[in-house]
């Protein structure tokens, strides 16, 4: 495949190279006897916000884990910025996750022993930043996310929405190129959920970060530039041309608006 794509689009003629392209092709993954992915193909461009939708057990989380290099697919290939992710060893994939990716999951991603501030600084500390620098970078996130005054709290002392905002800050603090969010509002009430989604989408846009959101909630998907639908381990239409949803209605043709190749 040609890795350098120059796309002339309607919005600002954004130049998209292989740099920002994240692609999974013909991915297959089974857990024991249970197939989770059966030839799923996915692609996102730099700065794009993609919602991965689908019913429970359809394989959308597995797709996300494969794209993020957490899981290695049994077959198929994952490319990020031109590199084969699935062929990297564990340490290299960890490094890539630390440098290029951020994560916002539904549960359990905060380290309970650490304070909010330390949790946010964690990716920077792991990357070898000095403590003062890592902490001052982390503290910049408190005001915009409405977390002022909560720096010293541990995860047990935060509300669900607060925890999720801390997780969000942690996902973004290293200014990753891609943020993977798996049901980021799944444990929140709708008002808090919306607030978190707004913060997430705003921050991603501000930083030019690609955002891949796994969700089954249409309200969450509405924040995305485009949606893909996962069903039975396959992505319903990888190129996303006039795909139809469950009811047979065409889903929005967002890629065109962002100048991505069809």
């Amino acid at each position, binding site marked *: 495949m040609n890795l350098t794509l120059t796309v002339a689009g309607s919005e600002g003629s954004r130049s998209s190279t292989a740099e920002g392209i994240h692609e999974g092709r013909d991915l297959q993954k089974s*857990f024991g006897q249970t197939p989770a992915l059966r030839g799923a193909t996915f692609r996102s461009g730099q700065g794009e916000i993609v919602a991965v939708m689908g019913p429970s057990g359809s394989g959308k989380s597995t797709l996300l*884990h494969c794209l993020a290099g*957490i*899981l290695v697919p049994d077959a198929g290939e994952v490319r990020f910025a031109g590199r084969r992710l699935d062929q990297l060893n*564990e*340490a290299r994939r*960890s*490094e*890539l*996750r*630390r*440098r290029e*990716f951020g*994560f916002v*999951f539904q549960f*359990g*991603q*905060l*380290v*309970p*022993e*650490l304070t909010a501030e*330390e949790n946010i600084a*964690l*990716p920077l*500390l*792991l*990357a070898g930043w000095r*403590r003062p620098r890592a902490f001052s970078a982390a503290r910049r996130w408190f005001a915009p996310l409405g977390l002022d005054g909560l720096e010293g709290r*541990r*995860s*047990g002392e935060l509300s669900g929405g607060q925890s999720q905002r801390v997780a969000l800050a*942690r996902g973004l603090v290293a200014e990753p190129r891609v943020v993977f969010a798996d049901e980021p509002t799944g444990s929140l009430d709708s008002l808090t959920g919306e607030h978190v989604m707004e913060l997430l989408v705003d921050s991603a846009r501000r930083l030019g970060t690609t955002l891949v959101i796994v969700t089954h909630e249409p309200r969450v998907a509405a924040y995305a530039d485009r949606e893909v639908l996962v069903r039975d381990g396959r992505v319903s239409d990888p190129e996303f041309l006039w795909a139809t949803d469950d009811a047979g209605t065409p889903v929005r043709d967002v890629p065109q608006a962002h100048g991505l190749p069809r």
Partner: protein
Amino acid sequence: MIALGLRLSLRGGREAGARLVFTALGVAVGVALLLLTLSGFRGLEAKDVREGWLLTNERNVMPSIDERTTDPLWWRVVSDSFGEDLLRRVEVAATGPRSPLPPGVSRLPAAGEYYVSPALADLLERTPDDQLRARFSGRLIGVLGEAALTSPTALTAVVGVHAPGIEPPAFVDHGGAPVSTWIQVRSMETAPKPSDYSLFFRLVLGLGAVGLLLPVLVFVATSTRLAGARREERFAALRLVGATPRQVNMIACVESVLAAFTGTLLGVVGFYVFRPLVARIPFTGEPFFTSDLSLGWGLIVSVVLGVPLAAAAVGLLALRRVRISPLGVSRRVAPRAPRLWRLGPAAAGLAALAVAPYVALPEGNAGIAFILVTFALIILGLAAAGPWLTMMGARLVTRSAGSDWSLLAGRRLSDGPGAAFRGVSGVVLAVFVGSVFVGVIDAALNEARANGTRASLPASSVRQWTGERPGGGMDGAKAAALVAKLEHLEGVTAAVRLYAPASRTDAELGNCLVALADWRRMPGLAVPNGDGQIVTVTANDLFYGAAESGSAVVGSEPAGGLAGRPVSALVVLTDGAASSIERVRTVLLRELPDSAPSVTVAQMDAASLQLVSIMQRMVDVGIILSLLIAGCSLAVSVAGGLIERKRPFSLLRLTGMPLGHLRRVVLIEAAVPLLLGTGVSAVVGILAAGLILRAIPTRLILDAPSGSYYALLAGGVAAAFAIVCATLPLLGRVTRIESARTE
């Protein structure tokens, strides 16, 4: 990463703090017990060193001083007794200014002077003079220094006497030659007493060492894996944000090493704190000097470094699964069920013991080493087999599950049989070690009892030899005066003379003559058949219980009459009061200073059981220690288990499972591995004891375990359940609804 690891352990909130404290305490207890056990062996060595000087003789292995520069010293060690305790009386007489000096004194006592050990000084204070002080003529000039003492409670005296050549000995042998017990020495012996431990004794010591050390190591390993699943969750979170496996390992290492290092230091401190208490345990019948329970610096340093390193290794091994995936917890592959090979090591150990009698086992230490290695193999084998047994038990529980709690307990057990067994592994190993010990020692005790002899004479009778050699003895007239004096003492019911026989053959057979009238005064003795006024009896039969077996016969008086014969022994019958016996001893020692000191029949009875009863004491101490280890291990793992299961249990409670059902789950989870484990290890232990007895060249045979063994077993299991039950109130607290929310 080191800073982050330290941060996570030290300031990680209550849960992290609790984990650190529990792990460190667990390691501390384990290390303290380990060091105390090791120091016990050093204490045994030190005791041998301390007893060295009492073996001083004309040809010392390691003379204390250049013998060419010294004047000879008249020397003898008299083994007197007080109550059941040995009272060593070292009698010395210098022949010149340069006679060698015994340890613990600044100068040799002159004739009529004596030193006593602190314990003896104390006893002298408390005891009426006619029972003890009268045994020492002259002036007390000081207390013996520690260097002269075999133990803090040792009763020892160094007594200065007139050079024995000056005074004629009090008795003569059969041929009329004077007998002397004195020797001349030119130095003190400084070599340790050669360990006269028999093959069997060494085996028991070795079993004790292995049987204590391995459970301690298992316990340390258990402690460092405390609440492992919770750690895994946290490490998975770290991996998700991009920590490399190396970084997570580093953090895990820092945590394990921190806890283990803190625990090890605490353990070393604990060792020094508890050492004085442990020194008081009369392991060999006497307490130790605290300073003798010492450890070399090399050993302390290697423990302080080795335990944290081992903990780091164990911690890393336990993290293997997390290294696979940052989704470690949510997508954890079910751990592989324990396989049948886990029964292999224990079976191999038993098989090796079983074939040992048929192959020529090397003699001596190599043979013992072989047995110890197989013993260790069986212990480790039981630790390996435990999870498999637990899994089988879990399947049974699941299959017959009729309720939510038994189903849940069964599933949890079969999901993690290893973790479930780890908690009770201390108890299981203690039961195994205890069973082997009880089996081996009971066999030895039964054997000793069967061979041991009970004299027909009352236990409170005192025997006094008055002749050193067969047929020798005390002058009849002097003996008569002594008997009169003895019979005058308070508490003495009779004093009987045993006369030397006339014929040399009789003398060499150890026979002696007793007037029939005197014979009748000794209670418990049947009157033998025959006509006459004189009983001829083998002295040993009289004192070792075979007087009825027919060696005693009644006959006529020897030529020249009984009264003219030398008296070779006296039997003094007392009313049994301790004071009466001591009075008799005091008189006998004063009147017959050159004869072997008197002993009671009770002491003779005890002597045949002495070594075995020392061993039994050691075993009791060993079993108590291993149960202690087991109890600590169980408490630590139950506490850790509760922290670990906080979340699933909180969620279950949230979904409406009554607390009572959760309690049952906890109890079943403990009961299945505990009952199966102790049952199997008791059977394997008794089997191993039988095979060990068969493998060593002794005549000992395994007996069916006694009632006290079953009591011990039941007590151990009950105590284990009590510990588990004691944690149940905690269950209610950690599963409060709030804890589910904060997860």
